């Protein structure tokens, strides 16, 4: 019989370092999602501190967290759809890795938002592939191997197909968990639910642990039994934001341009603010 990768999980609440230790291994496919909102910086920093290597990193928008992980040498491969510093410009570590293989070569698999999202949805749905109207006539068709065309069996019309994405580990940040490890997030919820549901193992970091979840307007609940581990990480999305807790540190995003432009300055900043800072790093 087929063994489902989606066996029931515990959603137990553990310290972040312990959760990352238990869940993330060298060479894993690791998705960290959060669309501008609720970006799991604390978890990403813990992965950097634990020195994970040869990861395939997956995110629609690599953002600063992947710029940092790539610059610190965690990644050998990147699956993404938009690699910029939103409203500011370039991700310099991302560019340096692709343009100059620093600190090491970075293989890329590039999609559109709609296409990579369809990969998550297919993964969460236990389907081998997803379909969408996309890629037609673009150069992405040529450079991205995980894009195919498929004919509708009823009309013959051609659409695009992408393979399901099932990360080894899916990591997201949310506002709340209860003591049983049920999670609630609200505001812009992106592809976080799909990331948890598509992954063989999942980690959710949260702003606060409450006695009982009260469903909020716009609230999305992820039951504990589809989550491998929950970690309490207040401020864990900074410098991105957590609706109801803190707002986006736009100044940090602007300042990152200069910090990340220079290799030494970047390494120095990471040493001081992440490596030496333990869980306290923003």
């Amino acid at each position, binding site marked *: 019989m087929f063994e489902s990768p989606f066996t029931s999980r515990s959603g137990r609440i553990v310290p972040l370092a312990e959760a990352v230790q238990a869940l993330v291994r060298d060479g894993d496919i690791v998705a960290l999602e959060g669309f501008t909102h609720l970006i799991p910086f604390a978890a990403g920093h813990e992965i950097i501190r634990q020195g994970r290597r040869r990861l395939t990193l997956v995110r629609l928008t690599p953002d600063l967290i992947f710029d940092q992980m790539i610059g610190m040498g965690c990644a050998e491969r990147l699956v993404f*759809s938009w*690699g910029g510093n*939103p409203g500011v410009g370039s991700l310099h570590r991302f560019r340096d890795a692709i343009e100059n293989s620093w600190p090491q070569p970075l293989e890329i698999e590039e*999609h559109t*938002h709609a296409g990579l999202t369809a990969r998550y949805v297919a993964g969460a749905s236990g389907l081998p592939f997803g379909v969408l*109207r996309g890629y037609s*006539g*673009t*150069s992405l068709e040529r450079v991205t191997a995980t894009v195919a065309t498929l004919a509708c069996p009823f009309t013959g019309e051609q659409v695009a197909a992408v393979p399901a994405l099932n990360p080894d580990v899916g990591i997201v940040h949310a506002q709340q968990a209860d003591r049983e490890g049920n999670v609630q997030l609200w505001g*812009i919820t992106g592809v976080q639910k799909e990331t948890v549901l598509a992954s063989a193992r999942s980690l959710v970091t949260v702003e606060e642990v409450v006695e009982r979840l009260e469903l909020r307007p716009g609230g999305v609940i992820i039951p504990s039994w589809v989550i491998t581990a929950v970690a309490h990480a207040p401020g864990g999305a900074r410098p991105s934001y957590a609706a109801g807790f803190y707002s986006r540190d736009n100044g940090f995003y602007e300042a990152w341009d200069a910090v990340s432009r220079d290799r030494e300055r970047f390494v120095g900043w990471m040493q001081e603010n992440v490596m030496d800072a333990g869980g306290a790093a923003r």
Partner: protein
Amino acid sequence: MSTPLEDMMAVTAARALKGAKNCFVGIGAPSTAANLARATHSPELVLIYESGCIGAKPTRLPLSIGDGELAETADAVVSVPEIFAYWLQPGRIDLGFLGAAQIDRFANLNSTVIGPYDQPATRLPGAGGAPEIAAACRRVLVMIRQSRRSFVAGLDFRTSVGFGDGPGDRRRLGLRGGGPEMVITDLGVLRPDPETCELVLTDVHPGVRVDEVRQSTGWPLRVAPDVGMTGPPTEVELAALRRLREAGKV
């Protein structure tokens, strides 16, 4: 610190939004233009951001397409899978806005890479939502600074399709939206020729000469027999633009 010609781009784009009921907005110049349209002639314009915010009503220009204020002021916030599958893909959106690093004579766009894909001279952010916006929206507006580096005879990478290789290509490729109807630059406005689909200079901004535009184009630019001039920004437009920009600086 915006230049008068950047203001002209924003104002011209905002004016082009007249009649649109809803608009799929990227960040930066498009967001400025769409919010300027809301602040002036189209208060009812429904702004849709790929972060899932439908009917967002920001009071200041968001720095990112996922800013908190977009969600707080939206009529509805949906997941990212839903915004692409249920809202953009079926062709519900009247108008989409795109920017790019390179554009060719058929209004195809490159926002991925300068140089060879495997050995890039400059790696750009990439596709994001642009290819599906270019494919699905009924009307597409492109905003791009005009120069020989951006207006090129051949794209290094085709991120988003305008009219492909010419007439009939959109249909052949199964792209159901209407394609680019205006390209708004800091020098003027270009529109596709209905027959050939090639971009034609139809308007210049005040103080811009046609030969300047020719010199800033990487191919022999076709020019309309009667090139118009875009109307200068009105006081109302400039004031609204200032308010939006000021509010942004928080």
